[in-house]
């Protein structure tokens, strides 16, 4: 309060007598001037987020793992896995001196469990990526995009993947 009063006293044109006069007849002249608004056009949405150090949205870690997101990321992981096999086989066979039957014969002496595991690791990602790939192609035709259908085809795909993996392993 005292600071405010002191400010009032310091203002020029307010020395019109006692305090009563100050409180009653104070008039401030305000001049309105129009100015063009400062428009920032250089910064886009992503740059602003970066400047304000906003965390990436959506926060993946706060979500409960759902079948939709899990099947989606698995599609990518299995795709990368199969690509890894294909590329490693190609480049590996280029680097190895002997031909394939030689190494295949060597592998025949490996333990059955190891071979079975290897076959599973080859067959499962391939089967998964193939079955889920059909689902993705269906979506690309704008079919089955309702959330209930996404779940239904998700479970169907998992069943198909299991069957295809078993068929590849045992047929």
């Amino acid at each position, binding site marked *: 309060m005292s600071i405010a009063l002191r400010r009032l006293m310091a203002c020029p044109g307010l020395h019109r007598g006692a305090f009563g006069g100050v409180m009653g007849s104070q008039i401030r002249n305000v001049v309105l001037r129009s100015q063009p608004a400062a428009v920032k056009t250089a910064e886009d949405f992503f740059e602003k987020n970066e400047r304000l150090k906003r965390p990436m949205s959506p926060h993946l870690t706060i979500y409960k793992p759902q079948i939709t997101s899990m099947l989606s990321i698995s599609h990518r992981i299995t795709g990368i896995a199969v690509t890894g096999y294909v590329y490693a086989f190609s480049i590996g066979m280029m680097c190895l001196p002997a031909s*394939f039957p030689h190494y295949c014969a060597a592998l025949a002496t490996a333990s059955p469990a190891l071979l079975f595991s290897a076959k599973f690791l080859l067959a499962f990602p391939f089967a998964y990526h193939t079955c889920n790939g059909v689902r993705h192609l269906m979506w690309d035709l704008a079919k089955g995009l309702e959330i209930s259908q996404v779940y239904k085809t998700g479970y169907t795909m998992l069943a198909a993947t299991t069957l295809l993996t078993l068929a590849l392993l045992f047929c």
Partner: protein
Amino acid sequence: MALALVIRCLPRSMNGSIRTSHMWSKGQLNGSIFKHYPAAGLLAKDTNAMVAVAPRREMSDGGDHVKLWTAERALSVGLLGIIPAAFIVPSPAMDYLLAVSLVMHCHWGIEASVVDYIRPAIFGPVIPKVAIASLYGLSIFALGGLIYFSYSDVGLVNAVKMFWKLDMRNILKLVCMVLPKLTLRVTHYQYS
């Protein structure tokens, strides 16, 4: 806020600042959006010039993404036929076709992942370009390797078949070995 949401909900083709204000001034969107957001219509009319819309971010200018997208899907559908066909009717021609289509599909898939995860906002301007360039090199190398393998070795399909035949007897042996033991253990457990 509601306005911002409306702008986000617009299809991409309308998501440019010039086009958006143009359409609003002509009242073309009245039926679709302003029915649900009357306040947004009011705001848009009054502050037409001041609506700030985030500029569109193109991955690259001038590239025809529609054709690439369609080609990727066509190849994916094609692989669903080529892979079984290569195993049912094996021939050198099918082997080469399989090698080319498989590597192209792999390359496009990995390229999409690299574009998604190794992006300039995180890795700076150089590393993403190096990653894509290396991927092209790797894919060309892998394709060369597979074609060479089909030409000089047993071929892709035969190699898979040979490996796949390998352990059937061994698996049977494993089953024959493990099953009696399991049965024994179960019976032992029951009688003890």
